[in-house]
């Protein structure tokens, strides 16, 4: 149990190496790479379930922590551990990975070995991001993610893949280099990059410095999320990436930004977060409303879903900057739900793309006549994306709305508009693709989903519905960690002073006596 997080990172790396090295020597060729990748991701998923089973959901402490010397002479350690927030992100990652491998089974036919190896590498890096408890380690994984993603988009992408790959890489790199400077400044000021320590000490910085640091971090996370107006890389990257790449981008990589806000901006720089909260609301509302409108007019299915991602992630940032239990929990659940739903929507597009090789909405229509199972599947995710009660999409959005109403009622109005628009573009997309007469001859020859495709949609549907009906699966283990963030982000001068004086206290020693846990669980149940 002690090294389980390192094992989680190492397992995919070992799998990637084996896939790459052995794949070239073994006659099975591509199939060997596929199977070894699938088995590795499944093993990783199993391991993460073991970890989840041993996770103490009632505690806000970082669990399974490991700390090893890394840079001698510097207070920089290999320090990993998870709390409720990272637990769900890790599970989301390990859950989506086997699905990605499965969905690329037939659609990736060239350089399969490299593709699978890169995906496994990507998995290791993303898990690394979520479990890092050291800023430098976090940054290392955060940036390194760009390398496999650049290659995945560039090698296996669509027509305009090279432009998209460059844009993705340079955009995100430009964002994160400023984060590096913020990191170095924090290290210089507090002499450590240990995240729990910094959470205690960094709030003591003066407001002015907090603001600079906050902005530097904001650019980095806002590009990842992405927030309007930093979102322009996303439609390109999503559209050009192969299906599995889009799933990972939408399902996991976007969450790095939201996770960054929850893990760094809020707890470390509370005063600046409050100072900038209104701006974040404005940007998020623009994201929600504007990108929803943009989504309405898209002709390309993937682009439509890409814009819908921007809108949905707008809810995450609104929730995160509400600074209360409901809002933050809503943001987290929205992230998990969006990971499942938008990932699934890209898979849905992938299924028909594999058959017709076009993403043009106008080329489809009447698909329900030939692919009834597919139509039903697509329906579930359309509804979940529109936020129908009973699906996971609803839980996150309603919590965000409840949370933001307490923080800023005006922001809620904007967010709620987004809900309506979200339903509009998703239902219209569904109508145009699935219902109506078959206008395109080729659609008639499309075959319904095969066993492999069923195999990866079934768990997704089950989860989306399960979380819609019984969200406290997530929220019960999430609540303590969220409560801690809420406490950290509260503006109490006394706390700032005590954080400085109690430097030597045990990590995260001063949790509030009354955890608002009971309340929030009620909220979660709906």
């Amino acid at each position, binding site marked *: 149990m002690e090294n389980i997080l390192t094992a989680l990172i190492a397992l995919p790396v070992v799998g990637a190496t084996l896939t790459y090295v052995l794949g070239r020597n073994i006659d099975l060729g591509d199939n060997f790479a596929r199977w070894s990748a699938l088995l590795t991701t499944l093993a990783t998923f199993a391991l993460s379930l073991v970890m989840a089973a041993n996770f103490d959901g009632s505690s806000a402490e970082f669990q399974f922590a490991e700390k090893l010397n*890394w*840079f*001698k*002479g*510097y207070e920089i350690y290999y320090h990993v551990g998870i709390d409720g927030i990272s637990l769900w992100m890790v599970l989301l990652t390990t859950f989506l990975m086997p699905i990605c491998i499965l969905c690329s089974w037939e659609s990736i036919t060239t*350089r399969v070995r490299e593709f699978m190896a890169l995906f496994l590498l990507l998995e290791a890096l993303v898990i690394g991001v979520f479990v890092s408890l050291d800023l*430098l380690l976090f*940054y*290392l994984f955060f*940036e*390194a993610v*760009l*390398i496999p993603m*650049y*290659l995945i988009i*560039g*090698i296996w992408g669509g027509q305009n*893949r*090279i432009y998209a*790959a*460059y844009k993705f*890489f*340079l955009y995100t*790199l*430009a964002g994160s*280099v*400023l984060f*590096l*400077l913020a990191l*170095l*400044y924090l*290290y*210089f000021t507090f002499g450590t990059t240990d995240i729990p320590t910094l959470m205690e000490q960094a709030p003591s910085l003066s407001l002015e410095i907090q603001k600079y640091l906050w902005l530097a971090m904001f650019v980095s996370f806002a590009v990842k999320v992405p927030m309007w107006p930093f979102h322009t890389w996303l439609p390109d990257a999503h559209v050009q990436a192969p299906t599995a790449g889009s799933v990972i981008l939408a399902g996991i990589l976007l969450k790095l930004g939201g996770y960054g806000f929850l893990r760094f901006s809020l707890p470390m720089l509370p005063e600046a977060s409050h100072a900038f909260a209104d701006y974040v609301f404005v940007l998020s509302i623009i994201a929600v409303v504007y990108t929803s409108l943009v989504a309405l007019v898209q002709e390309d299915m993937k682009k439509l879903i890409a814009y819908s991602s921007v809108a949905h992630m707008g809810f995450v940032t609104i929730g995160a900057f509400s600074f209360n239990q409901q809002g933050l929990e809503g943001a987290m659940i929205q992230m998990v739900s969006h990971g499942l739903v938008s990932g699934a929507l890209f898979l849905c597009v992938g299924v028909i793309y594999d058959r017709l090789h076009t993403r043009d909405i106008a080329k489809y229509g009447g698909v329900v006549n030939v692919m009834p199972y597919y139509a039903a599947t697509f329906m579930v995710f359309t509804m979940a994306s529109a936020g129908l009660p009973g699906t996971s999409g609803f839980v996150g959005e309603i919590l965000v709305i409840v949370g933001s109403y307490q923080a800023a009622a005006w922001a809620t109005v904007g967010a709620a508009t987004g809900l309506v628009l979200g339903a509009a573009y998703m239902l219209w997309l569904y109508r145009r693709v699935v219902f109506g007469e078959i206008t395109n001859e080729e659609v008639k020859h499309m075959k319904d989903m095969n066993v492999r495709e069923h195999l990866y949609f079934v768990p997704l549907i089950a989860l989306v519905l399960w979380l819609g009906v019984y969200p406290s699966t997530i929220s019960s283990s999430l609540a303590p960690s969220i409560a801690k963030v809420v406490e950290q982000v509260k503006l109490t001068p006394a706390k700032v002073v005590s954080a400085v004086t109690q430097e030597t206290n045990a990590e995260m020693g001063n949790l509030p006596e009354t955890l608002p846990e009971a309340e929030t669980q009620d909220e979660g149940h709906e």
Partner: protein
Amino acid sequence: MLPIPVLEATLFMPEVFLLVSAIILLMLGAFMGSKSALGVTLLSVFSLVLALNIIAPSLGEERVFAFDDLFVRDTFSQYVKLLIMVSAGLVLIIGKAWLRHDHVQKFEFPVLVLFATVGSMVMVSANDLLTLYIGLELSSLALYVLASFDRDNARSSEAGLKYFVLGALASGMMLFGASLVYGYTGSTNFSAIATLFGEDQVGVAHGAIIGMVLITVGFCFKISAVPFHMWTPDVYQGSPTVVTMFFATAPKIAAMAVFIRVLTEPFAEMLPDWQVILQITAILSMAVGAFGAMMQTSIKRLLAYGSIGHIGYALVGVAAGTSEGIKAVLIYLTLYLFMAIGTFGFVLLMRRNGEQVEELTDLAGLAKSRPRPALFMLIMMFSMAGIPPFAGFFGKMFVFLSAIEAGLYTLSIIGVLTSVVAAFYYLKVVKIMYFDEPGEPIDRYIPFVAGVVLMICALVTALFFLYPTPILNAATLAAGSLVGSV
């Protein structure tokens, strides 16, 4: 007292040893003719290894002066000498594999490399402007010849001439600066100048500042910092690639090290003056390096601009002017050494029918036709671009950490932003190798020794993050041994 010369000669041992070996090998070559080239190369590598063994134990020892304070031996100098010898050794080993193919297998090559190495070593141990100048000239003269080593090639001759003219100009400026400093302080000795400035409560004389500026300009020529970088792309492109590889490493590392010593020891009191100059040069170098490389079609020119950029990043650490900054520069240079040898080693592999090709388009689709060299170059390019977890990132990180600690925020922000611009052309190389359709493939042949050297470079670059301690420790010791560092 002890018979001083004997004691002092031991301090000077590695240099003397290498010098004597170089002279003996020169004789050997002269008498045995060009067929001795292989033997001379091997013996040169052997003598470098022996000299390395003499130097290695002295790391971490006390600072000692010799020859009336003309010469200093401290951990800083020893560490930099180590780097210089490692790079000379690797260049000779790779050179052995390729020179025959490039029709320049002559015994003079290893001998000249040895002379340049000795010159560089004398330079980094200089504690006097004159020792410095002698070392600099010894290494520069050898380098001029090396640049035009492929004498039947017009480009190579041009490179040699260009390098000579501009190098001589730089040396002249440096000498003029040195004479001004001597005029205003009455000494050429580093320790004496430092004491004099330190005691002088009225402040530093303007003439001495002009001297310092001229010396700085001279160094900027040698390390090819903007705006004194014009020679770099032409010389890098024109010289035989093995020689370019040497240019990119040993002489630059040596010049950078002496530069640091001169700034932090005799001119420590002028910190506000030279800090401004260095900040501007650093910004310009990073920017010119990033923007200049974008439009290049020849990989050697691209890497030349890249190296200008890298010098810019290293200068950020020098500009910080702190012990932390010097340490960062040393780490940067150490990691850069392996990256540069690696990338130029890769350029050497770019051949069709044995002939060197150097256009970027020659790499098209390399990932399909030659996956392993492509993967190697991918690691190098991402490392050069400063993407973690590769070594190049850590070099940049330490440099910017020192800049932040010194309060140079503007410099840091410009620095990281130019690194994004620079990432563009490193990505371009990856793009050409991995995304483009394959053209005519390059040769399959990789000489065994070259493969080994490339392997070493790849391992250091890719796995530095797993065990950074040895390089970190050595750099800490070395930076701490400089007197002026705070």
